[in-house]
């Protein structure tokens, strides 16, 4: 007899998904003007969850106009009143967090333990945090009476759909802007549910508009002449295109883009916790994390022991049904992403790196990838340079702290980095030398609304979270 965990499925029935959704513009759901729709599927089963409207440029224009119209009154509201709306939203998110967690796992494929214990608590916390800023902007360090920018066009990715929405909408609304937000094509549902939360909170019409669609919808939102602020989280490639689009305009832009973070383990690291940090760093959310610790840099003198321990730990990861409460790794978000991961992994093998994955039975339907690590990786390998955005870890080695810094910084990205050592002075020396916006020392993938997040170099510009996150939405 063995201790096999029986299925522990979270109840699907706590969420009621409509067969179709329109665009949420000016407080009303309405179909796209040309009637176009697309399907959103559950990546763990390929089941069609709903049909949503594909916003065209006319719809984008309508949404921006609605936001513009709402801006006058919204920005003139006393900060304390805006704060109360945001507090209401935060509370409703807490109330509905179970429903939203299930929805997020269905649409995105992430394990319910993560949507329940990471995404949703952080979503509510983000609204709470920025709610409190709304009436304190004079004290935020941006001079007296900082003003909102106007209409914010926000485009978010599929990896943390509702959390990225919160990161965008909470500071925008707190500072008095109105928003048009486009969720990712493969994960539109939680944003559409958020529209209902806005309704429940009594948020004035037009303050938040949600338009669904693909990349072309996002491009026309970013390019709309009456958008004052562009906020984007996604790939570096699209980020660059947006930077070109807004060139020569007055639009303020913040970008949260890709990464190829080094997670650096020294020989004096707390090994068991380092292993957890490595696992959390690359396998959290199937590795669909821009700040994922996708490059393990391990000091050669502990390489064998660390890799043994890491493999042993990886063998305990449970891959499967995102709604099972014991699932550690869920589904890859889309067939397209799976193809990209597969291609890069094949390139890793072709370039001579050694691939390893624990024995792992994958479901037959849906999109899946086993947790994988590559050893024998060098800086020149594609899997050491390109963002894989999947559960694939590249292991490199170093001999000295200087070499670790040099290798860690040898990338066009600069979003995050991890350091594992029990020596305080070395930790601070490393933290100082690493060119990345977030340094996790003896921990990894920690997030908090009070903590600024954002990258150096091609990982983007601007910060989200904390006092710093206000700047992106103020005329300062």
């Amino acid at each position, binding site marked *: 007899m063995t201790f096999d965990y029986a299925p522990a499925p979270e109840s699907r029935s706590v969420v009621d998904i409509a067969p179709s959704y329109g665009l949420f513009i000016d407080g009303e759901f309405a179909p796209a003007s040309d009637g176009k729709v697309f399907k959103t599927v559950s990546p763990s089963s390929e089941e069609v969850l709903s049909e949503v409207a594909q916003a065209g440029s006319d719809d984008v224009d309508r949404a921006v106009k609605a936001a513009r119209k709402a801006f006058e009154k919204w920005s003139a509201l006393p900060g304390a009143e805006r704060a109360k709306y945001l507090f209401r939203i935060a509370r409703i998110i807490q109330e509905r967090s179970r429903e939203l967690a299930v929805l997020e796992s269905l649409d995105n494929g992430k394990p319910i333990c993560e949507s329940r214990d990471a995404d949703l608590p952080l979503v509510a916390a983000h609204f709470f945090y920025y709610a409190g800023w709304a009436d304190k902007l004079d004290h935020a360090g941006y001079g007296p009476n900082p003003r909102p920018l106007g209409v914010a066009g926000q485009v978010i990715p599929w990896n943390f759909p509702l959390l990225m929405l919160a990161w965008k909408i909470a500071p925008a609304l707190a500072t008095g802007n109105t928003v048009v937000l486009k969720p990712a094509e493969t994960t539109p549902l939680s944003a559409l549910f958020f529209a209902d939360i806005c309704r429940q909170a009594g948020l004035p019409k037009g303050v938040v508009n949600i338009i669904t669609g693909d990349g072309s919808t996002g491009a026309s939102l970013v390019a709309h002449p009456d958008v004052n602020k562009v906020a984007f989280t996604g790939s570096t490639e699209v980020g660059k295109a947006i930077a070109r689009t807004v060139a020569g305009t007055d639009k303020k832009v913040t970008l949260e883009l890709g990464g190829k973070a080094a997670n650096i383990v020294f020989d004096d690291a707390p090994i068991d916790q380092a292993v957890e940090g490595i696992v959390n760093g690359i396998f959290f959310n199937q590795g669909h994390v821009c700040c994922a610790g996708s490059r393990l840099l391990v000091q050669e003198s502990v390489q064998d022991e660390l890799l043994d321990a890491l493999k042993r730990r990886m063998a305990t990861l449970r891959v499967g049904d995102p709604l099972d409460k014991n699932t550690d790794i869920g589904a890859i978000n889309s067939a397209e992403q799976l193809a990209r991961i597969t291609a890069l992994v094949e390139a890793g093998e072709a370039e001579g790196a050694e691939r390893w994955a624990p024995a792992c039975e994958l479901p037959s339907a849906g999109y899946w990838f086993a947790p994988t690590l590559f050893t024998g990786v060098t800086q020149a390998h594609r899997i050491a340079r390109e963002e894989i955005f999947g559960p694939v870890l590249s292991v490199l080695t170093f001999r000295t702290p200087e070499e670790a810094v040099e290798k860690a910084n040898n990338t066009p990205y600069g979003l995050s980095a991890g350091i594992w050592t029990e020596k305080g002075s070395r930790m601070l020396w490393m933290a100082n030398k690493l060119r990345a*916006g977030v340094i996790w020392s003896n921990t990894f993938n920690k997030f908090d609304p009070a903590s600024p997040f954002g990258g150096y170099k091609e990982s983007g510009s601007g910060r989200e979270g904390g006092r710093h996150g206000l700047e992106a939405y103020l005329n300062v």
Partner: protein
Amino acid sequence: MSDRLSVLKTYKLYVGGKFPRSESGRVYEVTDAKGNWLANAPLSSRKDARDAVVAARKAFGGWSGATAYNRGQVLYRVAEMLEGRRDQFVSEVADAEGLSKSKAAAQVDAAIDRWVWYAGWSDKVAQIAGSANPVAGPYFNLSAPEPTGVVAVLAPQESSFLGLVSVIAPAVVTGNTAVVVTSEGAPLPALSLAEVLATSDVPGGVVNILSGRTAELAPPLAAHQDVNAIDLAGADAELAKSLETAAADNLKRVLRPGRVDWTADPGTDRLLAFLETKTVWHPMGV
């Protein structure tokens, strides 16, 4: 008064702490506001720009790693040196901008004071731009600003010295290094400033100064993959747009041009424009 023939100055570029001629061997004629010949300035080439970026990159580690106290003292030293050569700069600014001696003197005085203003910021900016973040967990969490890296600075065209100082000092005081393209028509105060910088303990390569055609030098700088940021103060709207577009290739931080009154209180905008926020987490536990 006398028939003595004055000794003219050969103006040179300032790259990596040295005073080279343009590698192209080209110069262009610089005149005063009335069109009288003042000097021949080096007409820098794309290769000069490239060399300046290399010098700036090389200097970045040391300068950004220097203590803030040290950088503040170096900037203050620049003010001291300028004060001693005040008359020279008054006359150069007067010639360059067609100002009366008193108006030029006001510009120079303001420029000297601007170095002093920014010198004092070196060890304070982290205290206004950083934060201790009360995260909901057992973690020490601190955000602090760091310099962005190598900044290409297109100095304002119209304010040859006060405007110039107002864009260089905020970029470098925080630890960035700069490649500066001078005012195209009035480069001489900038080229003379290089002589002050060279004698003010500013490490070679921290500030590099190129004279020439902005429209020729700016595009390679905007497109350069080893430049981290660009200040478009000296670009017109059309050029600025194309430079910002080129800068997107490696996502440079871009400070767009705007109408600036260089005599006004500069505030902290330019100081903060070329900083990255780094946030460090560490568990707290026994």
